């Protein structure tokens, strides 16, 4: 967990980056498109469908959301996800929900966290499964109906959806 032996962490990180190099190299070699961070107008259709079902006509904008995920997941059955936001949580305005979407999972809409102003802040730390390398998206919904989003591409090596 967070309090690890620093030398071990450095080692793990170095290993993960080396692995990322291999994976990236392979993808480049195959001429695969780089995993550009698709903007709201360039989302895969299944993701758009989930957004429409959940949020109707409202489109998430980039910003106010920090999404911490590994660049390379050493274990795709257990990928750490930490989401936080600088949006206010007080009596007038608060964060009503945090949503996790994984483009290439069997369930694209992975989880939704309904929050309240009683929490005093808005963040979620959890562990998720990933079927394969994919964008992971975090969407934050405010009590005033605003939607803010962040996304990151996570490389995986094995199918973690067991």
């Amino acid at each position, binding site marked *: 967990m967070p309090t690890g032996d620093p030398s071990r962490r450095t080692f793990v990180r170095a290993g993960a980056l080396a692995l990322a190099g291999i994976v990236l190299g392979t993808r480049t070699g195959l001429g695969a498109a780089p995993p550009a961070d698709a903007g709201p107008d360039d989302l895969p259709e299944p993701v758009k469908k989930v957004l429409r079902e959940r949020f109707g006509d409202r489109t998430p904008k980039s910003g106010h959301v920090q999404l911490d995920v590994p660049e390379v997941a050493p274990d795709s059955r257990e990928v750490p996800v930490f989401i936080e936001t600088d949006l206010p949580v007080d009596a007038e305005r608060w964060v009503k929900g945090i949503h996790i979407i994984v483009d290439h999972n069997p369930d694209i809409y992975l*989880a939704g966290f309904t929050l*309240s102003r*009683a*929490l005093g*802040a808005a963040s979620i730390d*959890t562990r*998720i499964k990933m079927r394969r390398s994919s964008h992971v998206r975090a969407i934050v919904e405010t009590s005033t109906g605003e939607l803010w989003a962040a996304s990151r591409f996570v490389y995986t090596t094995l199918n973690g*959806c*067991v």
Partner: protein
Amino acid sequence: MSVTIGDPRIMLPEKIGKDAVISVRALITHPMYTGLSRDAQGRPIPAHFIDRVVVQYGGEEVARFEWTSGISRDPFVAFPLRATREAPLTITWHDNAGATFRQSVDVRFSA
């Protein structure tokens, strides 16, 4: 095949000041089967996962989580809570087979 389920745990910081935003960490033992995997004999393992988590503080619902089997085995979650009063914090985990697991801890302010 027997699978261990349950043992819900809630972890709070050792020291809690009044009105401080604390981190609540919660863990439960559960296989979180997706329904996509097979056992050693090749038979499909039915989907079995926590699909709903309800958090109550002083009897009031303060958060509610909607999960799929995409949450990892032995689900862990951490979230903030403003410790406005000394009161019980209760978390209830529900799974798609109808089982319910509940754990409660007291939020107490440090002297």
